[in-house]
């Protein structure tokens, strides 16, 4: 077992543990903070999987922007204290855990079909030749430029929609 594998298991354990804590903590502020820990651990795994640009993007966009938005809304609605217990009863615990385990078993069974030793790592030479950003940016702005523009329009619509929905009625 080499060093990268040890680091992988470290980050994987951290991600699973903090996501379980996120689901089971009662206070939504703690849930948001545990979600940040999970996202950072996944960013570390992105680095191990040769997706350096996406790891940076994960930290900036998810941990930096989306989680700040979540925390801002929790604070704005004053849910951080005097929270009502929102975790469902014992039947739902059994149901959620059972369904989660069934889903996990199903997904693991499907993914065991992936080859243990895939033939060639085709990403490493590409990253070696172009660098971490250009390797992602070139297909993004050449083959997928239409999708990129549509995504820009989606962001504009989402921005306008969020402002209109959250606005106080005059």
């Amino acid at each position, binding site marked *: 077992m080499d060093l990268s594998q040890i680091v992988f298991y470290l980050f994987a354990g951290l991600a699973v543990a903090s996501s379980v804590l996120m689901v089971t903590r009662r206070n939504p502020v703690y849930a948001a903070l545990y979600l940040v820990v999970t996202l950072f651990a996944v960013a570390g795994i992105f680095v*191990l999987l040769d997706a350096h640009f996406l790891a940076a993007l994960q930290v900036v966009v998810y941990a930096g922007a989306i989680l700040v938005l979540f925390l801002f809304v929790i604070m704005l609605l004053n849910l951080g204290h005097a929270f009502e217990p929102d975790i469902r009863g014992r039947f739902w615990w059994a149901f959620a855990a059972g369904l989660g385990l069934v889903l996990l078993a199903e997904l693991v069974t499907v993914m065991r079909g992936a080859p243990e030793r895939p033939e060639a790592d085709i990403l490493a030479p590409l990253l070696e030749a172009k660098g971490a950003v250009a390797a992602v940016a070139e297909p993004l702005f050449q083959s997928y430029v239409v999708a990129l523009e549509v995504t820009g329009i989606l962001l504009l619509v989402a921005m306008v929609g969020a402002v209109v929905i959250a606005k106080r009625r005059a």
Partner: protein
Amino acid sequence: MLVESLVLSAALFAIGVAGVLLRRNAIVMFMCIELMLNAVNLFFVAVSRYAGIEGQVFVIFVMTVAAAEAAVGLGIIISIFRHYDSVDIRNFRLLRW
């Protein structure tokens, strides 16, 4: 490391599903949905190592859609909170039979 990453992504997705079922707080349910989207991102990144860079390009689109979804969803939650003074989903039953 391919199979391990895929199993980890499956585990994170299952935890997200269990969280959506377990919680009644709409904001925490949103966080669980973000966790599921992140599990799918991890799947794409793990596979892109052997199937080409397009997986990573798609992850960028998924992140953008997640950001848009979080903005609109939290706007809806703020709007609902003004009506009911709560984000508990038991109160949202206007469209329920």
